[in-house]
């Protein structure tokens, strides 16, 4: 058919996949859900902004991991190397650091919007819970990432921050040891925080983000005030 040649190449690629997998209808139902009129407001974008910042953190974090060395001897020097010798290293590290702060700010702003519009109420209680878990994960990202430059600010920030865990009744001391990998902040704490920051938290965050998004698609956005 001469028709085939005239159709857009994107349509033809889409048809090729459709012929094999037959997912166009469910995908469109999921992706092309119209946004209700009352939700077309800037303050309904805060959650999406948080997610965008998370993606930026993922990309810049992977880039930083290519030069960063997670040992007490090399960490600070590797960061100087990123800042002074790697092209645009200052930019990538700066974006990672600023986006981290902004991500927490956007998280809180998003929660404030959800709270004010009453979007946490029945039947959306569990999505609020998933959101609170995501906030805690974001804070954990910030806390573990703070130690990694291994400068004075990092060391004492982590010392004071983790000491809070030590005042838990009865098991405080054990929890503190578990978090630090010993009684003090050492190289063991650093590799621990590095592993949590790079592997544990991203996996958990993706799981809870997935749940967060699937639930909101399933239940729809809450109604107008």
């Amino acid at each position: 058919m001469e028709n085939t040649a005239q159709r857009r190449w994107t349509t033809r690629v889409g048809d090729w996949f459709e012929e094999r997998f037959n997912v166009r209808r469910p995908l469109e139902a999921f992706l092309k859900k119209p946004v209700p009129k009352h939700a077309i407001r800037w303050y309904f974008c805060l959650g999406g902004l948080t997610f965008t910042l998370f993606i930026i953190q993922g990309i810049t974090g992977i880039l930083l991991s290519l030069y960063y060395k997670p040992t007490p001897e090399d960490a600070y020097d590797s960061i100087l190397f990123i800042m002074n010798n790697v092209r645009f290293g200052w930019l990538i590290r700066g974006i990672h650091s600023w986006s981290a702060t902004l991500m927490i700010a956007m998280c809180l702003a998003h929660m404030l919007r959800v709270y004010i519009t009453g979007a946490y109420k029945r039947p959306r209680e569990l999505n609020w819970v998933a959101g609170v878990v995501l906030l805690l994960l974001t804070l954990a990202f910030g806390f573990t990432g703070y130690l990694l430059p291994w400068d004075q600010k990092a060391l004492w920030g982590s010392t004071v921050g983790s000491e809070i865990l030590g005042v838990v009744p009865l098991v405080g001391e054990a929890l503190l040891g578990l978090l630090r990998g010993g009684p003090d902040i050492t190289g063991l704490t650093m590799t621990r925080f590095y592993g949590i920051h790079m592997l544990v938290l991203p996996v958990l965050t993706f799981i809870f983000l997935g749940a967060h998004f699937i639930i909101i698609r399933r239940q729809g956005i809450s109604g107008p005030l």
Partner: protein
Amino acid sequence: MSEPTEEGRERTLDRPVTRRGLLKYVLLGFSAAATAAGTLTPVVAYLWPPRREGSQSGERVAIASTGDLPVGTGQVFSVNNKPVLVVHAEEGFKALSAVCTHLGCIVAWNEQRSVIACPCHEAFFNLNGAVISGPPPEPLPAYRVQVEGDQVYVEGAES
């Protein structure tokens, strides 16, 4: 979502590109290309092998010609990303770390009094790096200096 009919799609393709349409595609295309270039350039440059191995390598660095540093003067230079104070004394060139061992301020050569002075807490060092007065707990570490022809070289950045 209603799929456009086969005829409808064909008609769209047959229609010549309008002035508005062309402008739209050019502007959109330019925006997309500029955004992609602006994002990808730093990332590719970041991944590109860095120029120098950096502070770990203590390689020899040419810092100045002897004419730039007359006898009795001193200046701070960047050697492998570390600040190094080079002084042209009567007996020859001296190079010391310019980071004060007290709280890390950058020291300077005081020409009038012929001492190394830290501006932060009134600390003074002599040309061997030893503390004359003030709070620093340790002397300034020394660097090796070499003069070849009229070029001054400083070697190494220990640790």
